[in-house]
């Protein structure tokens, strides 16, 4: 994987020195709080409910073992011994002191990590498919392109004070695991007539006005990526609304002007910008690509794996849910669930981080990934190593076999941490996971994605959950609205609102009624919740959710 060059390291050192000075200038009064705010935000520092929060980027979700150990070290030295992996492939520390943050950033820089542009009205940390470089269905590894975009967008002089934040996601597979249609710009690598390029999708986003992105360009040749992105960003910077923060995202700009008008502007500016790139970017991309060359996968018998599948039902159950198909049939992609029943989704203790770093070193060619679904991935594990890996994970409490199941819930931090939240998310996720674990029907239910947001900003992606839960504040009382039928994949759909919300006490029983309705409605066990929902529509689920309404109608 890509290792920071001398230039990258010098840049980080300079940037960290600047931030250290900015903190000092804030203290001295040279910077007002208003002026300091965007500067700290573009360095990943938020002010939350109880404390500052530092959001560290995990660019395109890729880490090596040393970097993972560094994340553990930060948790121990400057925080409370844990970190929270987010839906945008970042990790958040919830309890740092502002005056410690410059030291934390210097420490991160030792392993090529940073918190640059993880917040603020700039181009955010670029995200990618968490199975990148390993997935069997991949056309090309999206990480080299994501790294090129990281370099281009980092400290880009035009785009540090945009009207609003700007998120870019990249996938190299037709099966979208990076939710690119819910990004300001989503890129899908594809091939046409032997040439590699991108489908460019623009104006997607969740939040208070959820929208699925629209196709801006069907096929953009690979070499044109940066001038095209630059044109799109420049058009947005000048055209996007600045009178109302809730209408400032590019999805609103696209909606108000129409995709065709936006396309005309982008294409015109693109033609002009194209001449300013003369190939240095492509040479750099070639170097980056070489750095991302796949590891030399070892060959060995997979008999140990096959035996364990037959003889160890606990291993078998974990293998059935937590493994994904690797492009090499003798290897597997391993998902480590950070969703133990009753735990906080996405949280990992420093001890768990160190265990995962060690295991990546021992079994996984020194590579780890963080998924937007808040789990950790070992992208390359030889199948013969899986039994030993599973045993080690089990010993560390990391062998929960629930990837893609009802307890593998995405949840934002909610009112337990976040200053914007209107309701708690974490306890709801914990209660749902615990309840379905007690019922022992999780495997029978099969693939089902529940996503929970603690406010309308939708960090928990509730709009694209098969079951989405949105926590609101109704006259000082938490109220949870349900949306159904959302989909985060290449067939992205915004879920439909089911009806009136539920109190914190009522929401888990309501989810149970929904699931029971699904089990009754499905034609066969192989028909998933989403397939059933698409076949039947909202009505039968609605009557399961609101039995009293049904009684009154009768």
């Amino acid at each position, binding site marked *: 994987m890509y290792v920071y060059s001398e*230039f990258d390291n*010098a*840049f980080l050192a*300079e*940037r960290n020195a*600047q931030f250290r*000075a*900015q903190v000092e*200038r804030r203290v001295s*009064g*040279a*910077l007002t709080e208003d*002026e300091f705010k*965007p*500067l700290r935000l573009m360095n990943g520092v938020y002010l939350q409910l109880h404390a500052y929060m530092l959001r560290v980027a995990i660019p395109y979700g890729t880490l090596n073992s040393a970097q993972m150990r560094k994340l553990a070290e930060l948790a121990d030295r400057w925080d409370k011994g844990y970190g929270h992996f987010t839906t945008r492939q970042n990790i958040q520390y919830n309890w740092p002191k502002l005056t410690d943050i410059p030291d934390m950033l210097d420490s991160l820089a030792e392993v090529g990590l940073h918190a640059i542009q993880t917040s603020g*009205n700039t181009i955010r940390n670029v995200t990618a498919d968490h199975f990148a470089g390993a997935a069997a269905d991949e056309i090309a590894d999206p990480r080299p392109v994501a790294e090129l975009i990281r*370099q*281009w967008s*980092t*400290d*880009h*002089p*035009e*785009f*540090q*004070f*945009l009207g609003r934040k700007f998120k870019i996601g990249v996938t190299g597979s037709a099966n979208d695991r990076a939710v690119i249609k819910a990004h300001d710009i989503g890129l899908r690598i594809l091939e046409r007539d032997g040439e590699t390029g991108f489908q460019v999708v623009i104006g997607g986003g969740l939040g208070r006005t959820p929208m699925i992105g629209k196709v801006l360009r069907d096929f953009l040749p690979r070499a044109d990526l*940066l001038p095209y992105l630059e044109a799109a960003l*420049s058009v947005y*910077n*000048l055209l996007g609304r*600045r009178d109302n923060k809730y209408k400032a995202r590019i999805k609103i700009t696209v909606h108000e002007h129409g995709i065709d008008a936006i396309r005309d502007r982008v294409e015109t*500016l693109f033609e*002009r*910008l194209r001449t*300013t*790139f*003369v*190939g*240095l*970017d492509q040479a*750099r991309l070639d170097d980056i690509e070489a750095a991302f060359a796949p590891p030399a996968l070892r060959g060995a018998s997979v008999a140990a794996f096959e035996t364990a599948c037959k003889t160890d039902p606990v291993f078998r159950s974990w293998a059935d849910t937590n493994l994904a198909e690797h492009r090499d049939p003798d290897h597997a992609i391993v998902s480590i669930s950070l969703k133990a029943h009753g735990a906080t989704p996405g949280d990992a203790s420093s001890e768990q981080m160190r265990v995962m770093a060690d295991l990546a070193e021992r079994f996984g060619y020194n590579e780890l990934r963080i998924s937007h679904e808040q789990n950790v991935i070992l992208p390359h594990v030889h199948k013969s190593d899986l039994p030993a890996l599973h045993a080690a994970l089990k010993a560390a409490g990391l062998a929960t076999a629930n990837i893609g199941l009802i307890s593998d819930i995405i949840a934002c931090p909610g009112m337990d941490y976040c200053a914007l939240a209107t309701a708690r998310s974490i306890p709801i996720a914990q209660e749902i996971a615990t309840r379905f674990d007690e019922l022992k029907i999780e495997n029978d239910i099969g693939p089902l994605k529940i996503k929970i947001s603690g406010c309308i900003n939708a960090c928990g992606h509730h709009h694209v959950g098969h079951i989405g839960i949105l926590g609101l504040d109704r006259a000082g009382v938490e109220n949870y609205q349900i949306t159904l039928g959302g989909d985060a994949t290449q067939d992205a759909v915004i879920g439909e609102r089911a009806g009136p919300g539920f109190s914190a006490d009522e929401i888990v029983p309501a989810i149970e009624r929904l699931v029971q309705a699904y089990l009754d409605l499905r034609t066969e066990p192989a028909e998933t919740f989403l397939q059933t929902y698409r076949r039947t529509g909202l009505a039968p689920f609605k009557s399961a959710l609101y039995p009293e309404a049904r009684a009154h109608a009768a």
Partner: protein
Amino acid sequence: MTTIVTDAGFAADDWNRGYAKPNAAANDALALHLEPDTDPDQVPLSPGLEMIRVNFPSFSDGRGFSIARQLRLRGFAGRLRACGHVLADQYAMARRSGFDEVEIDDDLAARQPEDQWLARANWRDHDYQSRLRG
């Protein structure tokens, strides 16, 4: 009074020939003053135009950076000035976007003295953009 910031530090304003608005008979203007809602494509770039000044009503409004960039792309080679609420922290961004200088008022110059601007006079260093372009 205002202060002009360049890579050399603070100086007094040496431009005393005024500014025209880009619409009103600006075809033969010596200097133009632009607000951030200006479409840079519509700015008349006449041969006699020596100076363009772009206003930053608030430091958090970054439209001026794109305006500068697009004016340069259109071929404007004269003096390009950012004025208003621009922070020392934004000096490198202004220079990299194509501005030559920044005009700030006395309050800001007092609160963010010359050394804080000079600290960013090395804007050519550590620049990802220059590594990706010709």
